[in-house]
């Protein structure tokens, strides 16, 4: 449950950044392992690549691209917050990060299906 003192947009931006960061940390080792198959076991890699043609896997990839993009844009937002002169548009920047991430991941999905 989200406790009352946390129910404001920038706390949710923090939560999204943390969840996307954890999600990517779990995904990346699997990703690198799969890439390594190109050298160690090419036929297994081909099987896995055929598996990624399934729509349900494309949908999961959409989620991954969203996590990656929202972490990237959210990270840029935090670096701007810390190292550029203060902007009063904090909530706008957080929503821009989500909007851009949605745009990137949806473009990926439309191209993938």
């Amino acid at each position, binding site marked *: 449950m989200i406790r009352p*003192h946390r129910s404001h947009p*920038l*706390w949710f931006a*923090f939560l999204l950044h943390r969840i996307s960061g954890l999600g990517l940390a779990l995904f990346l080792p699997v990703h690198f392992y799969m890439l390594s198959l190109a050298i160690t076991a090419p036929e297994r890699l081909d099987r896995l690549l055929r598996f990624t043609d399934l729509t349900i896997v494309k949908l999961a990839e959409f989620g991954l691209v969203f996590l990656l993009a929202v972490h990237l844009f959210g990270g840029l937002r935090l670096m701007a*917050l*810390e190292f550029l002169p*203060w902007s009063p548009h904090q909530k706008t920047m957080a929503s821009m990060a989500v909007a851009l991430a949605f745009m990137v991941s949806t473009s990926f999905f439309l191209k993938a299906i």
Partner: protein
Amino acid sequence: MMKRISLLTSDTQMMTVSIWREEENDGRFEDYQVPARENQTVLDVVAYVQQHIDPTLSYRFACRVGMCGSCAMMVNGAPRWTCRTHVSKVVSNDRLEVGPLRNLPVIKDLATDMDPFFEKWVAAEAVFHPSATRDDPMAAITPDDPMRIAASEAIECINCAVCYAACDVVENNPDYFGPAALNRAWSLVNDSRDAGQDARLAAVGSNGGCHNCHSQQGCVQYCPNELNPTLSIAGLKRETTKAMFRWSR
């Protein structure tokens, strides 16, 4: 015209308020019936309970006009200065729940021990170090000096600890100085008369310092004086980063 008096009559609308009662680490919410007046603050309600229902209720207040920073409590789960918080603005589903400030030890009921909060101000070097004596001339600082302007933005803190209670980093890291102490340290970083800048940057860059902040900005959300501790902490992050390059040379 008849003068309206606020005596409790049989047709007075009543409301339920849940108030945290705690003694020797044994605490729970207890319900009280109080008059539902059109115009009353949360502190009025707490005072009513103490004056008319249970005189053993402990809480802290002083000025009642938002100057002293004594009366902050958790109201329906969010930190508020209770003397300037109208019940009608925060009541949800006819429910009002008043508890002691988060992240501080409870002494009794609604009164918290503020020592850890203020000890962290000292640990963060949020203390003025004079560079002149009384025999020196007054420092001439113009109001349009950029450092003076930056200091002014952070200066109106009333030490109420609302930001400290709003902060999840304080909750999870007992060493973290918290938004108020770091905000004060930032106003001193911008004080050209101060002679303790190196010690201050070392303190705010230490384990409990500014780099713990996750920029959740609960402090900005709830500061009753509309200060921006996240801005101050971002300033400290920049200055400590610059100092790291200076000192490593």
